[in-house]
């Protein structure tokens, strides 16, 4: 019974990782850059919800919506101010800038909110579900997280495949020049991608901090790195890859914590990444990129 309970917990954490990993992978696909500040957008989302609920007494749903809007604005602003001027720069310059933006966000948060850990109160009010005569308990957070992430991922897939904007995102990620010739505004499409990634990060922050309620200025960094690992694990640039990678990562993490060692769980996660990359360097669903000549 406890195995099933760990498995469900792992899938729940993993679906949160998937949502964050989607932001990494979509941005990588379209802008060919690793946005290492993505994890810190989660932290910002967490603080927005915290302030909205604990200090302003707003309804949790309003708090989450507010976080979604502010994170979208933040994502678009980061792209416009920090990354857009570097569109033709070397990828190393962009990577260093992204790390810089990450530290900037963490330190601004530290300045505003202080160094003390804030205790995040759950946005989810669904009661826990007791099964098998109390032997298996599924928390309200898990009951909401898994279906919500599933719905969001299905909706995102439909949006990308079926809408004009979604198709233009595929086109731009594949071939920028040809997209321009079709009349697609590449800068606008990249901005939309950052906005969607950041909105997903905001939802992820609500779910993540509801289950793991301590919030500091560096709270986004670790889930951010893990989601990045999940994206690479699944094949960076691949949307289904990010989903599968995230869920696998969550399950591996929770099971290692339960059965091997809670201290070593993170090390095991990163070790498995190294193994996967040694065997399949492009990740589970990754494609080999052929440089066009």
């Amino acid at each position, binding site marked *: 019974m406890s195995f099933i309970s760990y498995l469900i917990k792992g899938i729940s954490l993993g679906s949160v990782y998937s949502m964050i990993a989607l932001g990494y992978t979509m941005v990588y696909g379209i802008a060919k850059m690793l946005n290492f500040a993505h994890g810190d957008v989660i932290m910002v989302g967490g603080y927005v919800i915290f302030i909205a609920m604990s200090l302003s007494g707003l309804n949790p749903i309003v708090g989450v919506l507010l976080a979604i809007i502010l994170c979208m604005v933040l994502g678009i602003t980061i792209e416009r101010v920090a990354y857009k001027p570097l569109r033709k720069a070397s990828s190393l310059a962009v990577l260093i800038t992204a790390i810089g933006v990450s530290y900037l966000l963490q330190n601004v948060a530290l300045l505003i909110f202080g160094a003390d850990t804030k205790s995040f109160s759950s946005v989810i009010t669904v009661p826990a579900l007791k099964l098998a005569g109390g032997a298996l308990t599924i928390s309200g957070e898990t009951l909401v997280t898994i279906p919500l992430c599933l719905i969001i991922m299905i909706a995102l897939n439909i949006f990308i495949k079926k809408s004009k904007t979604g*198709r233009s995102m*595929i*086109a731009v990620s*594949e*071939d920028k*020049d040809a997209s321009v*010739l*079709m*009349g697609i505004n590449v800068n606008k499409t990249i901005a939309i991608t950052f906005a969607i990634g950041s909105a997903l990060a905001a939802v992820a922050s609500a779910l993540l901090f509801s289950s793991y309620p301590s919030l500091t200025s560096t709270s986004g960094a670790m889930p951010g790195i893990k989601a990045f690992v999940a994206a690479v694990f699944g094949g960076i640039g691949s949307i289904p890859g990010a989903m599968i990678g995230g869920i696998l990562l969550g399950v591996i993490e929770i099971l290692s914590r339960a059965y091997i060692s809670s201290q070593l769980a993170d090390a095991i996660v990163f070790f498995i990444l190294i193994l996967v990359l040694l065997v399949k360097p492009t990740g589970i669903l990754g494609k080999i990129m052929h440089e066009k000549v």
Partner: protein
Amino acid sequence: MAMLEVKNLQVYYGVIQAIKDVSFEVNQGEVIALIGANGAGKTTILHTVTGLIPAKSGEVIFEGTDLQKIAAHKIVSLGIAHIPEGRHVFAQLSVYENLLMGAFTRKDKAEIEESLEGVYQRFPRLRERKNQFAGTLSGGEQQMLAMGRALMSKPRIILMDEPSMGLSPILVGEIFDIIKSISKSGTTVLLVEQNAKKALSIADRAYVLETGKIVLTDDAKKLMDNEQVKKAYLGE
């Protein structure tokens, strides 16, 4: 007045000058060929016209509008389609979706549907493969898709970059027949080709480009008889 006018164009890649004071014009209804060896600057000229590469100086005027003052992604809606060298179809999108991307800037659904039907009639093969990923098409089919996609923007002029590249002689003939029929239906064509013989056979006029400069221009028929052109480009 010419439909498309390029005046004293200068284009640089870093410090290297790729286009040196190039001027030419394309009139409504014409088929104009730009011929020249690899690296002569043919592709660069087309890229500058559609805004993918900025010019250092010179003018590109389309029906009175200075194209260099317009964002590259807005140029297609003026009526200029550009089929890039190497086709550049969207491999992860289906044939049908690629064609829809061609009509990206158009709004009227009924008219888009009409253009789609027109493209399918011109290229029956594309209708057969409409749900297939474009990446799985053969080279000739991809060229047809790139042409169909360009037609979906309802262009008044089409810029074609090496449409015969990498195709078998039979397919080259087929592609040039299609170019002729596109021209007959009233669309102006600016054709860039290394296959000078084929290009001159369907063009009204042509410009010969050598290392970034126009060295010769005349009616296509006269150029075919020009000794210099024969020797350098027609392999006679």
